[in-house]
């Protein structure tokens, strides 16, 4: 299983802070599709992604136990 962390507008759209998805062996783009279809998170195209707290890209293949975060456009400062 892969843990998927949701923040800001994604967390509000899904109504939860994280979900577990059976995505080991799949690229992150697979998780993106699941979030759109099953959790109603529609604005993922502008998001960046991180695996285990480092930025990566949608083609990265996931391993069991990975933590994926979908990062909406940031607005700190």
């Amino acid at each position: 299983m892969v843990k998927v962390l949701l923040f800001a507008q994604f967390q509000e759209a899904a109504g939860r802070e994280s979900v577990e998805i059976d995505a080991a062996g799949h690229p992150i783009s697979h998780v993106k599709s699941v979030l759109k279809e099953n959790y109603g998170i529609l604005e993922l195209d502008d998001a960046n992604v991180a695996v285990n707290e480092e930025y990566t890209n949608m083609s990265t293949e996931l391993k069991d136990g990975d933590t994926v975060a979908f990062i909406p456009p940031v607005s700190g400062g």
Partner: protein
Amino acid sequence: MNNYFRITDEFISVEDVVNMVVRPESGAVNTFIGTVREFTKGKRTLYLHYDAYVPMAEKKLAQIGDEIQTKWPDARVAITHRIGELHISDIAVVIAVSTPHRADSYDASRYAIERIKEIVPIWKKEHWEDGESWIGDQLETKAYPTGKPEEEDLYG
């Protein structure tokens, strides 16, 4: 032990952040203080809510510190960013940079705040008189044709 790169849900003491970078080798300490603004393009903000991916945000703040160390080897940097509910004029972020001479302290401080707005996973939700919204990219110096930072922006 000093925590040079920190996310906190409590009031930020400017002096505590500054004191982390003060040292005999420095002749300049530049402090940037980011505060909550009431009016943006005529719209009145009542309060803000900041959310963060805390462990990654602290890592990315430390990465900015490393980047500054590469560009200005004599600099020392400390950054604290607050999250949670903040009201008008509350301090959201404090950046302190010390360097032997003043010019580098200004340049490194400016670099730090611009990089925060590019790579640190922190999000601001504006609560206005007539609604609320999460705010996206706020960089004023660079446009993203694809709507997000390119890979070279993320990795420095």
